[in-house]
């Protein structure tokens, strides 16, 4: 079975090529079928691989790519537990979202292109996680960036969308530069970019080696860009400009977790550098809290989810930072389930309300969209971390590890999950409970078609039971997922000599604290938005200071544009008008002007009077004779 696994990425690629070339000539339904079919095949293969992998890891060489002397990179895939889990997530969730899109994009005239892009994205994403070398991973890495660009700006008539797309691409590029330099350094240090070579050689390095630290930090810059961590997170909320399935697939379930995948993959390198680990954890936790605070006040249903994604990604990095690799991967999985679910629900709501996204104009949709409501509720419970839903186990494991390595991180994480619970339930209540606040004459809220609700239900089930693959020992479970991933992370764990857990008892206690905190904030949300029926104020009205800050994303975008974008344009103009035109070109042109001017002078010397000529001659002669003979 494994030997076929190498084919997984090529089905979506085929789908892309078919759809891309035939494009309009293909009837919409057929196109949709092709796209989903390709995904389904890949999923089947991925499943088979997942079944048969059982801890082994195997490389499949496809073709050489770049060879320059010692330097060489090839198209080689690596099949091991880690990649297999990601393959499962990508193809599985991807497939569901494809199906969902059939309904969601049905009336769009660029329907076929949309599916082509989706397939292309899946292809690159699969390349990313299956790559056996950093360079090949970079291929997928940039490829998904491109697809995200294409899909965010999918409705390219709208300038704001295009700007969002461009912003996403360029911010990712900033991260990519770090990644690229990291790769180059890896080449220079290890003479290769293959995981295998690097990780084996890495064992020879002392912990805290400067070069390793540099490399890991550079790689982490890449992760920051791709996984929207501070300070490169601002593109993700804007990326919600794209169609909702895109937000679900790319900006929640898969692409944004590439950063986590990369760090987890290079676990051994990070393990060798405590500083990097600390940085990762710190950035993660700060992002988690910061994004959560912003999410508290957003009124756009997708914006809330976007910030919550950023925040959740922060948790994952926190997990990585404190050495809980498998926990983070676990959280990636559960998050994929419930966040995809939430986005799709949001999509179904938007679909039901004919494009309305502002929660201030929603409410009381419980009746109108029952399935959506139920599934959304499940998703919310999952993300809030209520047992036994998926989110609880994964997030809790991370928090426990955080506690055991650094109490402050744990406290912050706790604060974060408290806010998470609050803003998620705020969202839930404002959307579904109470009475409908929109204009009920224009808009007639309605439940979405089957093709959209079925994926919701499946995802809901997954977000309910998905957590049980990782029930910790303390709850009498056998956290299978960490066992499953052990072969990948063992060497890293070994390097870290970390304190395993902190005693069953306190684990129980920590869980208790978490749950209670979460329940309290849920109650607070209920009190505010259900019993007191308070609704966020409409635009323009004066907000309290903190609320204002949070509502405007702490003005980070403004700060960036003031500090970077605008100055650069100024400099550009300056260089062109002053340095280029005046100085450099000025000198060049001056040479010509001076010649002309001197030539003008010379004309006066040629007076036309013979006696002057004669005089000049004689003077010349006199000079020569004098100089030579005296």
């Amino acid at each position: 079975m494994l030997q076929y696994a190498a084919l997984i990425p090529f089905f979506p690629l085929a789908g892309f090529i078919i759809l891309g070339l035939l494009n309009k000539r293909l009837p919409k339904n057929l196109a949709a079928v092709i796209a989903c079919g390709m995904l389904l095949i890949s999923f089947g293969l991925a499943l088979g691989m997942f079944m048969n992998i059982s801890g082994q890891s195997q490389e499949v060489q496809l073709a050489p790519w770049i060879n320059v002397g010692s330097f060489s990179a090839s198209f080689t895939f690596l099949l091991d537990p880690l990649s297999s889990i990601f393959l499962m997530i990508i193809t599985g969730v991807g497939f569901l979202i494809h199906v969902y899109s059939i309904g969601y994009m049905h009336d769009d005239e660029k329907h076929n292109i949309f599916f082509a892009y989706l397939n292309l994205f899946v292809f690159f994403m699969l390349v990313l996680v299956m790559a056996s070398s950093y360079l090949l991973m970079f291929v997928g890495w940039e490829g998904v960036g491109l697809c995200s660009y294409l899909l965010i700006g999918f409705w390219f008539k709208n300038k704001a969308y295009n700007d969002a797309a461009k912003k996403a691409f360029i911010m990712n590029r900033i991260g990519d530069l770090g990644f690229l330099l990291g790769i180059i350094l890896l080449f220079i240090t290890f003479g290769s970019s293959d995981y295998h070579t690097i990780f084996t050689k890495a064992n020879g390095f002392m912990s805290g080696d400067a070069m390793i630290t540099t490399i890991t930090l550079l790689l982490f810059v890449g992760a920051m860009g791709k996984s929207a961590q501070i300070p490169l997170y601002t593109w993700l909320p804007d990326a919600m400009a794209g169609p909702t399935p895109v937000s679900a697939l790319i900006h929640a379930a898969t692409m944004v977790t590439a950063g986590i995948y990369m760090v987890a993959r290079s676990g051994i390198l990070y393990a060798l550098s405590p500083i990097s680990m600390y940085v990762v954890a710190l950035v993660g936790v700060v992002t988690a809290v910061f994004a959560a605070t912003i999410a508290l006040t957003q009124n756009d249903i997708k914006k809330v989810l976007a910030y919550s994604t950023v925040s959740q990604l922060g948790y994952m990095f926190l997990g990585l930072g404190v050495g809980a690799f498998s926990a983070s991967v676990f959280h990636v999985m559960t998050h994929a389930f419930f966040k995809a679910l939430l986005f799709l629900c949001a999509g179904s709501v938007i679909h039901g309300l004919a494009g309305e996204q502002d929660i201030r104009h929603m409410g009381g949709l419980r009746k109108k969209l029952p399935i959506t409501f139920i599934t959304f509720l499940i998703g919310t419970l999952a993300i809030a971390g209520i047992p036994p839903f998926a989110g609880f186990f994964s997030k809790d494991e991370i928090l426990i590890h955080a506690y055991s390595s650094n109490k402050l991180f744990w406290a912050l994480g706790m604060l974060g999950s408290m806010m998470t619970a609050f803003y998620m339930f705020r969202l839930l209540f404002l959307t579904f409970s109470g009475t409908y606040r929109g204009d009920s004459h224009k808009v007639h809220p309605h439940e979405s078609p089957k093709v959209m609700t079925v994926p919701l239900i499946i995802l809901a089930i997954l977000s309910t039971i998905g957590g049980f693959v990782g029930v910790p020992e303390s709850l009498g479970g056998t956290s299978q997922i960490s066992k499953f991933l052990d072969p990948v992370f063992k060497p890293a764990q070994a390097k870290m000599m970390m304190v395993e857990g902190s005693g069953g008892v306190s684990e129980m206690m920590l869980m208790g604290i978490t749950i209670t905190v979460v329940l309290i904030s849920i109650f607070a949300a209920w009190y505010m938005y259900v019993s007191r029926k308070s609704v966020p104020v409409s635009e323009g009205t004066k907000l309290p200071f903190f609320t204002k800050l949070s509502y405007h994303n702490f003005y980070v975008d403004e700060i960036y544009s003031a500090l970077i974008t605008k100055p650069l344009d100024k400099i550009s103009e300056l260089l062109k008008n002053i340095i280029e035109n005046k100085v450099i070109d000025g000198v060049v042109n001056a040479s010509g002007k001076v010649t002309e001017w001197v030539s003008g002078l010379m004309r006066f010397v040629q007076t036309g009077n013979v006696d002057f000529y004669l005089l000049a001659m004689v003077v010349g002669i006199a000079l020569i004779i004098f100089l030579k003979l005296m």
Partner: protein
Amino acid sequence: MPIIALLIFTFATALIGLFIPIRYGNRFAFISSLIVFIYSLYLFCTFPITADFQYVVDYSWIQSLGIHFKVGMDGISVLLVMLTTFLTPLIIFSVRKSEPRPRAFYSLLLFMEMALIGVFVSMDGFLFYIFWEIALIPIYFICLLWGGKDRVRITLKFFIYTLTGSLFMLVGLIYLYLHTPGEHSFDIQALYTAGKSLSAHAQCILFWFFFLAFGIKMPIFPLHTWQPDTYSDAPTQGTMMLSGIMLKMGIYGLIRWMIPMLPVGLSQNAQYVMWLSIAGVLYAGIIAFTRKDMKRLLAYSSISHVGLIAAGIFAFNGQGLQGGIIQMLSHGINVVGLFFVVDIIQSRTGTRDIASLGGIRLKAPYLATVFAIIMLGAVALPLTDGFPGEFLLISGVFKFENIMGAVVGLTIIIGAVYMFRMYQRTILGETSLATENFTDLTAGEKAVLIPIVIMVILIGVCPNLFLKVSEPAILKLLGGI
């Protein structure tokens, strides 16, 4: 002998082209250049992967001065000849029927192809110089006769500027020639030995003489000010020739002549020239941010890219050189494609002003897609032709000195910024007055752009196809120093 055939054939067609009936002019030029391409493709495919020169022919030309007509191809030359013969048919094909005096135009293009091939195959310093100069004449007339409104001033500036460098190179060549051992000769090997035998001081001075010639041609900051004017004022085909192929003469000159002759000169000045190149990368890139004219924007982007290539080559290690080679090809292909797209847009809308365009994708999805792919090549997305080159170049520079590598790496961000800006403002968004009734690509335009797109992908996916050809020559070069 094959090389002679190439040269004579192109030259002959250039002459004949002047006299055949106008209505066949286009077809004739295109077909003949196509034949040249096919033949050189054959040469390329049958090219043995060895370090030494192939198809060498050596006639004594001016006995009294030891000047020979000596030509040959090694891995590097053959790639550039391929580039030339690949692009020329496309460029010829891209000429609009409305062009006045078409025959002269085609002949000049063919003549230029001859000269360019000559530059890439010369193995005799004097011959190299002759071809180097001859290549200047047709492009000068192309710009002068078919250029924009300010052409007279700009072309003259361009000509004198480039010639300045060339003449200094000539002095340098003569100087080296006079230091060749025994019976003086311009043979490339003799010049190598002569150059190496010089004192460090002499090498440094000569280094700057040659740098002037090649630096102006490429152009390297701050010798570049002729270039944006010329690019934006020349007819598009002229611009394609200049940016696509002619600028490669400079880079080729670095690799083939300057560095092997003056290793010490390089090692002593590498710091300065590399910082110059890197400065150019950032400088031009940042200027490109706010250009209003598409051609100008591309001109500056080209300066930026070339700066990276130069830096990689001056770093003078395997990655740098190989990256330089592959990037020469991809840059040539990309820039020609981009300039042609601009030409299409201008011919449709009558403007190159970015602000007054937009929404083209609504009217012309094909154009939009092709443009996008070529642009991705230009911003070095993996699996497009830009990536292998830029990656190798950056790593080459990085190897030479980390800081430089990090700084020059910024190009991948800067490039993305201006390219995507231009793309968004011209292709995406709502249509403007200019683009309201924009028509999509004609068959002819597709015929030009499709091959380019194919090459963009091909080089991106299997660069080895080309890298392996030039590798032995590069290794020999590295070994020789």
